């Protein structure tokens, strides 16, 4: 073999390697693109800007809680409570955002509060639920699946109890802006989602805390011996996940102008699906914010596209289930 030949072979090998690496990293984006193209061909209405904005608006709530769920999964944990925590935050925030001219207000003597109050209340309530999750997991060593399963049921009960099982509606315009407003034509929930995604991404990649999250997920014992405080990392992650669920609750209540105790039921599963489709590994240590966002988009495009194609809701569920499984199969293969 001459030298040129060897070099050519080498170059070919490198090319193939590069292709493989590229496919590995961006397989999920390619799937999204493929779905995008498929939907555009099948349903021309899909590509209209209004519709696309709609897709993103629909995923903004799932996207928020999916980031928290992603972090929990990176820690080899899980958060099943996000849908219920969302509901608690939604009813609490709504009860503090009712218009003063409404006769059946929850707190009749309360003046109309600035939007920051219900917003902060929703966040605090969410974070509090998350903190309890974190304490159960870190201090009482309860498996995350069980701790957050308990919280899922209990928080739903709290939401029902607080609202007496009824929607809390007629909310102030400033509160409604959070979920319905637009800035330069972009729906406000999307802006919130993008801001939180950037914050979360930076937190995971550019802070000590973020690296600690991956380390604990990658090997808890090794992280402990390297000086990472396991309890503190776990508490922070679940508290932050709760905070995001709280924010999602505020956004959702605002979007539908009503805090309802039944909100967000089943969202935790869509959030988990988004994280997993986006490449978050259930065995821990692997996962990214942008991956999860792509995962959420895939679910959003799927929901929207199938609606446009008049596929029955029953079939939609079957297709969604299948997509989740296929995504995991692809993920398993690329990790081999």
């Amino acid at each position, binding site marked *: 073999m001459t030298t040129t030949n060897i070099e050519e072979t080498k170059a070919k090998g490198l090319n193939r*390697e590069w292709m493989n690496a590229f496919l590995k990293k961006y397989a999920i984006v390619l799937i999204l693109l493929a779905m995008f193209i498929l939907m555009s061909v099948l349903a021309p209405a899909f590509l209209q800007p209004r519709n696309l904005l709609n897709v993103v608006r629909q995923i903004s709530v799932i996207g928020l809680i999916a980031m928290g769920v992603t972090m929990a999964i990176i820690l080899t944990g899980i958060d099943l409570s996000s849908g219920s925590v969302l509901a608690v935050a939604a009813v609490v925030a709504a009860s503090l955002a009712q218009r003063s001219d409404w006769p059946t207000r929850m707190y009749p003597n309360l003046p109309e509060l600035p939007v920051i109050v219900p917003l902060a209340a929703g966040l605090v309530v969410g974070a509090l639920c998350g903190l309890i999750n974190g304490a159960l997991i870190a201090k009482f060593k309860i498996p995350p699946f069980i701790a957050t399963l308990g919280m899922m049921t209990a928080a739903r009960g709290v939401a029902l109890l607080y609202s007496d099982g009824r929607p809390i509606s007629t909310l102030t315009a400033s509160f409604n802006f959070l979920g319905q407003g637009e800035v330069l034509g972009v729906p406000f929930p999307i802006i919130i989602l993008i801001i939180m995604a950037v914050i979360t991404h*930076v937190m995971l990649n*550019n802070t000590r805390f973020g690296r600690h999250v991956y380390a604990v997920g*990658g*090997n808890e014992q090794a992280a402990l011996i*390297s*000086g990472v405080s396991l309890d503190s990392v776990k508490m922070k992650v679940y508290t932050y996940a709760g905070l995001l669920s709280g924010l999602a609750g505020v956004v959702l209540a605002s979007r539908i102008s009503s805090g309802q105790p039944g909100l967000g039921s089943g969202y935790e599963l869509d959030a988990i699906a988004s994280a997993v489709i986006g490449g978050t590994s259930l065995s821990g*240590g692997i996962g990214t914010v942008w991956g999860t966002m792509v995962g959420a988009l895939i679910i959003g495009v799927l929901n929207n596209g199938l609606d446009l194609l008049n596929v029955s809701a029953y079939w939609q569920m079957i297709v969604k289930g299948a997509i989740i499984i296929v995504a995991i199969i692809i993920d398993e293969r690329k990790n081999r």
Partner: protein
Amino acid sequence: MDQDTVLVMENISKSFPGVKALSDVHLVVRKGTVHALMGENGAGKSTLMKVLIGIYAADNGRIIFQGQEVAIPNTATALKLGISMIHQELSPVPYMSVAENLFLGREPVNKLGLVDKKTMAADTRKLLARLDLHINPQAQMHELTVAETQMIEIAKAISYDSSLIIMDEPTSAITDREVEHLFRMIRNLKAKDVAIIYITHKMDEVFKIADDITVLRDGQHVATVSAAETDNNGLIRMMVGRELANIFPKEDAPIGEVVLSVRNLTRKGVVEDISFDLHRGEILGMAGLMGAGRTEVIESIFGVKTIDSGEIMVKGQRMHIKMPADAIKGGLSLLTEDRKRTGIMGVLSVQDNMTIASLDNYAFGGFLRKKVISDTCQQEKSRLDIKTPTMGQLIKLLSGGNQQKVLVSRWLLTTPDILILDEPTRGIDVGAKSEIHRLMSKLAQEGKAILMVSSELPEILGMSDRVLVMYEGRVTGEFVRKDATQENIMRAATGNMTVMA
């Protein structure tokens, strides 16, 4: 192919993304012999064996087993052909019994198709008796010691009645007595015409048990020789491709003041009344048999386990160490013995693994300076000669020796005064081993204090300024370098008190 040959592997090549793990390797194993497969970590021994038992498919080459060319697409095929393997990493099912583990995947069934537990227990008893192992067949695997677990894995491989058994570092977790036992088993197998491929880093074992030796280096076949024709140095030369000037490059370092004192450290039922001092510039070896409590002592010092009583003083200051983070703040660092379980974070990058203990150094106002991190890692990479294509490579894809260097680096980046090294060279190749020894010497000269736990007597004798010996949770001997002999240490390690001034 002649009658005596059981296995021929020809022109085996295998590439992984970025690495050519094997190129045109060949291996010929004779019936009824022990064939040692040697080479540094990353030389391709494990890959070659994984090709043989069907875990990996070779890119090209052929395998001839008992005179027939065979294709081995999976481990089941290998077992059916009569090839079984004892893996270096033990993988028992912890909450199943010894018998169930031995018969996993081939449980005897009765007429109803249910597992025949009686037959299984009886067969297990017979097997264990034949191999002279005194282990209860009904015991759960997680109740066994590491050594017992290892012996069960060996028993399992033997029980397939294979004509070729691969043993990948079978002695890494067992004591000398059990090694003798294993060697007896191997001799019995040889007498029955069973061939053994024996992978190890321990030279003395090779010369004790092997008939033929094949040496691999960087995925290539270097030589196949008969064990009688070579010696220690010749073998090392073939493995590393260069002369190792000195196996234990211990150099004198000025011994300074006491930096760590441990007084009456006690964890009930585990370690009792441990006291010792460690000086700046000193390498203190900690010897003892498996289960003597050495790892437990250092875990207690480092805050991995809580102590019942006792004092730990660092540079004259009493420390309250509740968790490892406290110990690290006090200037201690701990390289653990079990790289996979408590060392590396496999799915994280080399860079993440290297910097996890020292992130404070690169954090400015809460944010990490990525540039400083990657520069630091590049420096460490060249300083310790870590072989990795990029710093973003997942650490689990590195060889054991390189993983260990990354972990050493992790601790050096915390600029510790005191380095606790638990089996710092276990399971890594001779080349990396002597590099780590040289580094230890250099660190001592720089004024670091080193506490080294090791089960390898030559390492203890070669590297230590002073030796502590433990037996059943107590210190039973302390020797300065000139008094530290194999005999003295073994006597103390088996429970004979001989404290010398």
